[in-house]
């Protein structure tokens, strides 16, 4: 067979191969667009960029407690350490959404996904959750407080560079999570509910 014909055939074969693979890829994308995804999505819309060989570190993740004395109780988990606080924070939020392993109540509805999380230079962590955090919340002021401070305390307790936490829903400031607590300002750590209960009784007059 002449050499130029051989080159031509090889070239055509390569083009066909690329074409077929492109066709299947396109078909797969169209299917994904048209059909709702059945398999459960990962907790994080964008996975953390941590090395799988990075050393593990222990963290305390807070969940609503069914005991009367504490609103929140900590569970120990392991995450991959990273120099970037946002990457560690993403893993902590994923653990929170994943739920308790010791039969405590969920901190956030299991359908919630973390859309984005970043930490500013002033120590403010911005946690952007999907609408499910609000629409599937069981309701009630105390439960709403438990959800908010599960996120806030879990981040501030484990990551020194995080001092305050701002919660967004679908990328924007939300009024409340379940109709009560103001989400428009950042939250600071509050460990009183993890061991101390309510505030002191006010006895002073106006």
């Amino acid at each position, binding site marked *: 067979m002449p050499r130029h014909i051989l080159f031509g055939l090889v070239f055509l074969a390569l083009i066909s191969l690329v074409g077929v693979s492109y066709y299947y890829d396109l078909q797969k994308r169209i299917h994904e667009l048209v059909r709702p995804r059945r398999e459960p999505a990962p907790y994080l819309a964008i996975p953390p960029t941590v090395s799988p060989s990075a050393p593990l570190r222990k963290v305390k993740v807070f969940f609503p407690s069914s005991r009367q004395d504490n609103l929140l109780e900590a569970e120990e988990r392991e995450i991959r350490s990273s120099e970037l606080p946002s990457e560690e924070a993403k893993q902590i939020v994923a653990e929170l959404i994943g739920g308790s392993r010791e039969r405590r109540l969920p901190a956030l509805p299991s359908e919630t996904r973390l859309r984005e999380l970043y930490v500013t230079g002033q120590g403010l962590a911005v946690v952007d959750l999907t609408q499910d955090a609000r629409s599937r919340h069981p309701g009630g002021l105390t439960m709403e407080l438990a959800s908010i401070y599960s996120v806030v305390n879990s981040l501030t307790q484990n990551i020194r560079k995080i001092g305050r936490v701002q919660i967004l829903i679908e990328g924007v400031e939300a009024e409340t999570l379940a109709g009560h607590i103001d989400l428009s300002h950042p939250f600071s750590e509050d460990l009183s509910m993890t061991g101390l209960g309510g505030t002191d009784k*006010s006895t002073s007059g106006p």
Partner: protein
Amino acid sequence: MRIQQFGLVRPSCKKRPPQPLLRSRTLQGSFLSLILALSLCAALVLERVSADPNQLLIFYKQSRKAIPKVLLGSRTYISIIELLVFLDLPYSESASAGFVRITAGTNHISLTKDQPQVVLNEKAIGLSAPVTLVRDKWVVPLDFVNKVLGRALDEKVAVAGSGNAIAIGESDFTQFSTKIADKSQVLRVQGSRPISAEVRQQGTRLIFAFGNTPVDFSGSERQTADWIRSITMEQSESANQLVVELADNIRVARISHLASQNAYAVEATRVENPEIKSDVASQSARPVVEAWKWHHITIDAGHGGTDRGMTVRENVFEKDVSLAIARKVRWALETRLAVPVVLSRSDDQAQSLEERIAAANLARSNLFISIHTGNAPASTAANSFAYTAQLVVDESPSDPKSPRNLFVPWWEAQRNSLPWSERLADCVQNEMNRALNGGQSLSFRHSRVKLLSALAMPAVLVEIGNMHVPAFQAKVESDQFQNLVAGTLAAAVEKFRPLYERP
């Protein structure tokens, strides 16, 4: 034709001979009949249904929502996305690809742009007009609701006689009519099925509020009476009520709920001095304690409308319980303290936090109590707590001359009233500890409650019990428990009043 023949309206009558007297009388009779017929029509207008023809009111699971209608040619459409959000059905849509996919439990509905049909679980169902996009909004013909959604949700769909309301999950609307007795001044509101309404009087208006029960007003058996000015059915997202406008000199003597006959009977009497009015809510004599210095107290029933709050049991939500308790608190405060009470919502209507805040601030309400039921993680304790606002401290360095330090931002309007709110919360918490918390010594709580921080008056939020505790869940709907809560809150306000009113 007859009028032309008699030549009363056309100039050509000049050429005609003078009309015989008898014929003129016949004509007069015709005119009288005409006037009578017109009067009857006018009387019929008296009983009318006030519903916005540009909206479709949908009742579903103890809530209602008005969806705007869109007129395209001669066809009427509704926005499907608003409908799906109200029904809480997940969906995906793409305007560019021209499809909407809806999931209703295990059923799947597919809509394609410009197709006069939808696919329900791979089975095509024809519609009266094609699905289309109007200003990037998906719209479907009206028959989509009963032909497709009813099947997908496995619920019956009932349509009101006016065609402006639909009830999903109901076999039919409860038809009701009014009948006015001739001489005895009795108005009877008759339902086709058992009806339950909250009856109240505002001035000369007697209101039968039906909440979220799908009702259809089929009119009156006798159209007019000199003691009733008008009977109107107001049916919209904010109201589902029958309004009877009484004449000035009419006083309501008694209202009876004839439950076995599915009816209400209103007995009225004429009074010589029309200035003296009765109040339905005060059929028993109200004890007047002393002149109250305040304008009024606002009682806020938490949640409402599509915001259902937590679920108490199937088809009963926090919004229903909080409204029932709020109504009882109003009654308790009005009777014990003789103080006017305004409910932020007297019906199951959606109200944003801003709307509640604005209404109370604009009316310069003197006290604000928001009622919610609790849902705490602890499964053993069903304690009730009072909450006050916790204002966010601005940590940025502030300039004493900055506007922030000269004016109070509206979202921090609670700042000046917070000490009083804490006193009120203390009174409420102490009373609740005694009556609801088994004598425990619990403290009220501060929290960043969005509603409270912008109120410019002493304000507390009360969280009653804990829905996680089965014993509480069982009793929270009972009148006995709700009356206990109402009495407790009234007692707390009673104790707070002398503290606040001290010179």
